[in-house]
């Protein structure tokens, strides 16, 4: 494995729960992963799988109550974030670890100029005069390729298009050169041509600045085109982890395999389009009443008695390809 100093983020056995009227909600259940400098880790899954709560947990932004991180550790550049008090965490948040969200309009302050919002973020963490911070803001807007950055810095969010707003968010998130950037569905609200621009921008900047990136998405296409490693989540658990090449070449978990076969593809020379999409029957289970065994078992074609009774452990199937399935070996042949 990689040099220890290369590790930006080390998450171990993270457990985040929500206390609701209908019961205890295990949104993130025993999830571990690492991110290296300059590496992109994608977290994929459907709504309610816990991918966004994982992101919020890393930022320590889980609303408490009703939510709480009840177990595990989150180590960012060697510091355990869960051991920090709120003031210490504020010094880290936006500085060493930053996040961009799906909807830039709701995460920008509508009554504050774009430039001022970046200045605010910068001066919170760096001792700069407002003039110097203003220069940093314009420089950041130039870095994210916003044309006429000095003029745009004086504009309000509503004067920018969706793509421009997301660029401004990225500028703000990267202004303090964080070690880790979390992007939660950063392009889901954008049109496809703008999505391509924003993804290309994020990857360029990541290479330039050496930032570790956690990319949260439901889009397997985005995963394939951006990530080096992938974790697949289902009902709060990590069910599979692999390098992007290994995952797409031979998924070991029936859920991953089903997901891949259920997405329609744009006809491309060399890639045959399926005549009929694969269906995963049923729906994602409620996190309040999870089955005792594997949460995917009720929807799984391969499920056997054991799957309903015992949760399968994450096992290494070679080369760091992890999967939590009793029948992982047979997935390629049967499904």
């Amino acid at each position, binding site marked *: 494995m990689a040099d220890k100093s290369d590790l930006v983020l080390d998450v171990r056995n993270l457990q985040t729960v929500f206390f609701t009227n209908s019961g205890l909600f295990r949104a993130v259940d025993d999830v571990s992963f690492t991110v290296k400098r300059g590496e992109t880790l994608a977290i994929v899954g459907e709504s309610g799988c816990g991918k966004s709560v994982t992101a919020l947990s890393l930022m320590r932004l889980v609303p408490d109550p009703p939510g709480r991180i009840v177990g595990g550790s989150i180590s960012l550049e060697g510091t355990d974030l869960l051991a920090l008090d709120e003031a210490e965490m504020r010094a880290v948040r936006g500085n060493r670890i930053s996040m961009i969200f799906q909807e830039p309009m709701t995460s920008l302050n509508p009554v504050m100029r774009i430039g001022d919002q970046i200045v605010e973020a910068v001066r919170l963490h760096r001792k700069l005069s407002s003039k110097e911070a203003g220069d940093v803001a314009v420089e950041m807007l130039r870095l994210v390729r916003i044309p006429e950055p000095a003029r745009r810095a004086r504009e309000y969010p509503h004067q920018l298009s969706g793509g421009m707003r997301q660029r401004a968010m990225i500028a703000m998130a990267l202004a303090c050169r964080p070690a880790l950037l979390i992007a939660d569905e950063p392009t889901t609200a954008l049109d496809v041509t703008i999505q391509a621009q924003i*993804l290309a921008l994020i990857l360029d900047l990541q290479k330039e600045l050496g930032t570790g990136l956690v990319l949260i998405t439901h889009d397997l296409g985005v995963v394939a085109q951006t990530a080096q490693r992938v974790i697949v989540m289902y009902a709060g658990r990590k069910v599979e982890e692999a390098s992007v090449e290994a995952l797409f070449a031979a998924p070991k978990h029936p859920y991953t395999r089903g997901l891949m076969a259920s*997405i*329609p593809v744009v006809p491309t020379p060399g890639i045959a389009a399926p005549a009929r999409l*694969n269906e*995963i029957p049923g729906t994602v289970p409620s996190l309040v009443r999870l089955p005792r065994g594997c949460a995917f078992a009720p929807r799984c074609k391969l499920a056997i008695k054991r799957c309903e009774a015992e949760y399968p452990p994450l096992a290494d199937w070679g080369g760091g390809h992890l999967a939590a399935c009793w029948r992982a070996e047979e997935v390629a042949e049967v499904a």
Partner: protein
Amino acid sequence: MTEVLLEVTDLKKHYPVRAGVLRRQVGTVHSVDGVSFCLHAGETLGLVGESGCGKSTVARSVLRLVEPTSGQIRLDGKDITHLSKTALRPHRRSMQIVFQDPFASLNPRMTAGDIVGEPLAVHGLASGKELEARVARLFEQVGLRPDQMRNFPHQFSGGQRQRICIARALALGPRLIVCDEPVSALDVSIQAQVINLLIDLQRQHGFSYLFIAHDLAVVAHISHRVAVMYLGRIVEIAGKDELFRNPRHPYTQALLASVPIANPLAKRLTPLVDGDVPSPVNPPPGCAFHTRCRFAMERCKTERPALLETGDGHQVACLLNEGTGRSNTIS
């Protein structure tokens, strides 16, 4: 697939932009700006484009849910553009719509059975026991259990709700179903269920779909022909295979190059266009795409290219492709 079911000619929908105390008109949104196409019986025509390109307005105009500014809509050879509400009513039976958001398009205070049965009751086609039996059959057709008829919308998942919307659209035995982003709000694994259902139903009943979506892969999967819209106009229309194999309009090429492919070995995330879609309030003169086009020439700024046939039912509105019948924009 020879009989033409729907024929749209030079459809325009303009909205006034008003401002000030006197609500004076200060501009015009050219939402749909001269769209023509036809849809054959039993065919699926996909309509793709980015937000604000006018695809949903086309869908709603076809159903007369919004009144077109000008142009003509012919359903089964009959001009329905200017029919009065009462005169339109019998035609409403043959055209139905499925919306994007299955949460907003179902009345939360009606049971699923009543929702699906309502069109039959409104058109006086069935009542009492017969109505119930027909609704039960519709439920089965879309993969719901008849005993779920008494449940309310909130008791269903997103995918099941979209099935209810589809059952309601099927109730009157339509010949045309307009699908406006029917799977965009659904999870990936559920999306496949609904797409398969739509395809199966078309095979059984032989109706036509006007299928609107922003997701090229979904459109590619379900459509027989695909039309690409940009700022209120169709810039390219062709058979599915032809369009994806040989995209001729620079915008279509850019759109295709922007789709992330679910294969890490096919790395090709290449944004071929810069900038954003211009505002439809004052669309650029000439070709609306010239502000972002890699191949834009002087002529493109003043001349509006017509949608011209380049062979094989492939039509392109681009000056580069004018009458050549060959693609010379592939880089």
